[in-house]
């Protein structure tokens, strides 16, 4: 599903922050991406989400060499990827419900066709009572859950999550992990970037460890 060959990344004329990355993400797989702060976890997620282009090497996503893709093709590929970023990126003028339903809305689907699914998911992540609230009045944890719900609602082929349990209590953290596991069982490949050892210990999965710009894989 995803193949990186000798991939390197640098910002501007700075030093290379990711070096010689060689790995594959198979379909239906589950992995944690970990490493110390500043190791490049978020940059690697951005490479996987196609919001950054590598300075060298080959990135192959869903069978496409991304260096050969046009803007429209990249937009189509992104529809197959869900992403949860650390800063949530919710739209402040839309309710929680509308934010979560956004991936359906941009595909032109009728609101009635996805309403029940969105409401069910919001209840599952504990936002059933906050459906009509605007993001500025949500707590950090609520925003995080809304961002996760938006990333998983369209059942992406690949889910990328950057510290998805960073702002929630351990009980809710376990519940969100269960959501990711359920999603993985239904066929989504999941990559969770985290520092949280407790979270990683709760589920036996492949670990990708970034250290000094290089990736070490523990199957």
């Amino acid at each position, binding site marked *: 599903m995803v193949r990186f060959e000798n991939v390197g990344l640098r910002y501007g004329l700075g030093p290379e922050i990711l070096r010689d990355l060689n790995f594959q993400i198979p379909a239906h797989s589950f992995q944690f991406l970990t490493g110390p702060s500043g190791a490049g976890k978020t940059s690697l997620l951005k490479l996987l*989400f196609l*919001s950054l282009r590598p300075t060298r090497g080959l990135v192959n996503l869903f069978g496409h060499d991304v260096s050969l893709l046009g*803007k*429209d093709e990249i*937009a*189509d590929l*992104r*529809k*197959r*990827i869900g*992403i949860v*970023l650390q800063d949530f*990126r*919710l*739209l402040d*003028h*839309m*309710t929680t*419900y*509308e934010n979560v*339903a*956004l*991936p*359906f*809305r*941009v*595909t032109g689907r009728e*609101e*009635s066709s996805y*309403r*029940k*699914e969105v*409401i*069910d*998911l919001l*209840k*599952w992540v504990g936002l*059933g009572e906050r459906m009509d609230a605007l993001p500025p009045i949500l707590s950090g944890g609520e925003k995080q859950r809304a961002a996760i719900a*938006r990333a*998983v*609602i*369209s*059942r*992406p*082929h690949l889910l990328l999550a950057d510290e998805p349990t960073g702002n929630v209590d351990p009980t809710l953290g376990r519940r969100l992990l269960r*959501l990711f596991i*359920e*999603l993985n069982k*239904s*066929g*989504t490949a999941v990559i969770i970037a985290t520092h949280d050892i407790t979270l990683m210990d709760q589920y036996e999965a492949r670990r990708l460890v970034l250290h000094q710009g290089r990736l070490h894989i523990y199957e």
Partner: protein
Amino acid sequence: MSRTDQPHGPLVDLGRERPQVPARARNLSPIVPRASIAGRALVAVVAIMTFLASITTGTVLLVSASAAEWQSEVASEITIQVRPAPGRDIDRDAAAVAEAIRAQTGIVEVRPFTREESAKLLEPWLGSGLSLDDLPVPRVIVARVQPGTTLDLAALRRRVTQVAASASVDDHRAWIERMRSMTGATVIAGLGILALVIIATIISVSFATRGAMAANRPIVEVLHFVGAGDRYIANRFLRHFLRLGLQGGVIGCGVAMLVFGFSESIAGWFSGTPVGDQFAALLGTFSLRPSGYLALAAQAVLIAAITAWASRRTLFATLDDID
């Protein structure tokens, strides 16, 4: 393609928590928020530009309509002067010339000015109580030409000089040419101002769009994250900017129409005063014809379309930049 296109069960099973009543339909918020400071600034810019463009166009229409009126009035008249000549009776010459003109095809009315009327014409320069017997003042005959006919001026001149050698025919051609060139210059100046206003509109709208896009950059980024393509995003913003452009256009054009509507009444209050008379001479009755109002409305739609076009160009440039 996301897997939402394939048949599947619920993503999460809420069991007893599942809502028992169907969820109500929701009025979704627009993708681009309607009210924003940048949006209001754009409406103000477009309104001001449309107002200026409408005032320019309306004034050009008024001037050209008045000029066309003068031209048709002047062009439908010819003036014949019978000058006094030694040994000839000017009254008899004037009467003979008037008869000769009446006989010419295409002349519908002949009005010889009497001695008193000629004195009245000279009164502003020579004062009242003038005796024309003491002065070699020519006698004036005004003839009205049937509209739509081409008068054979050469034949008329021949006929007039046969009757009275001292008579001359003036068809006001030089005056009409000057009028025509003045009107043409006014219209060209108006079009030049209009072109400048439209260029200024495009530049202002591009900057305002860029500002509005910068303010909405987080929205563009999130739409990219959820898989929206540039065309989808651009269409959402384009509708937003077209609506803002139309709002500005309606406001600017509406105010300009009110100005033209009221100027007619205001001109009425000043009629009879020297200022009012000068303006009436230059701009006629100040009243814009219905076709003029239609032209202003069409211009407002054009400016809204220009706003949308300028926004679209800026939008794609900004989307490239965000990528």
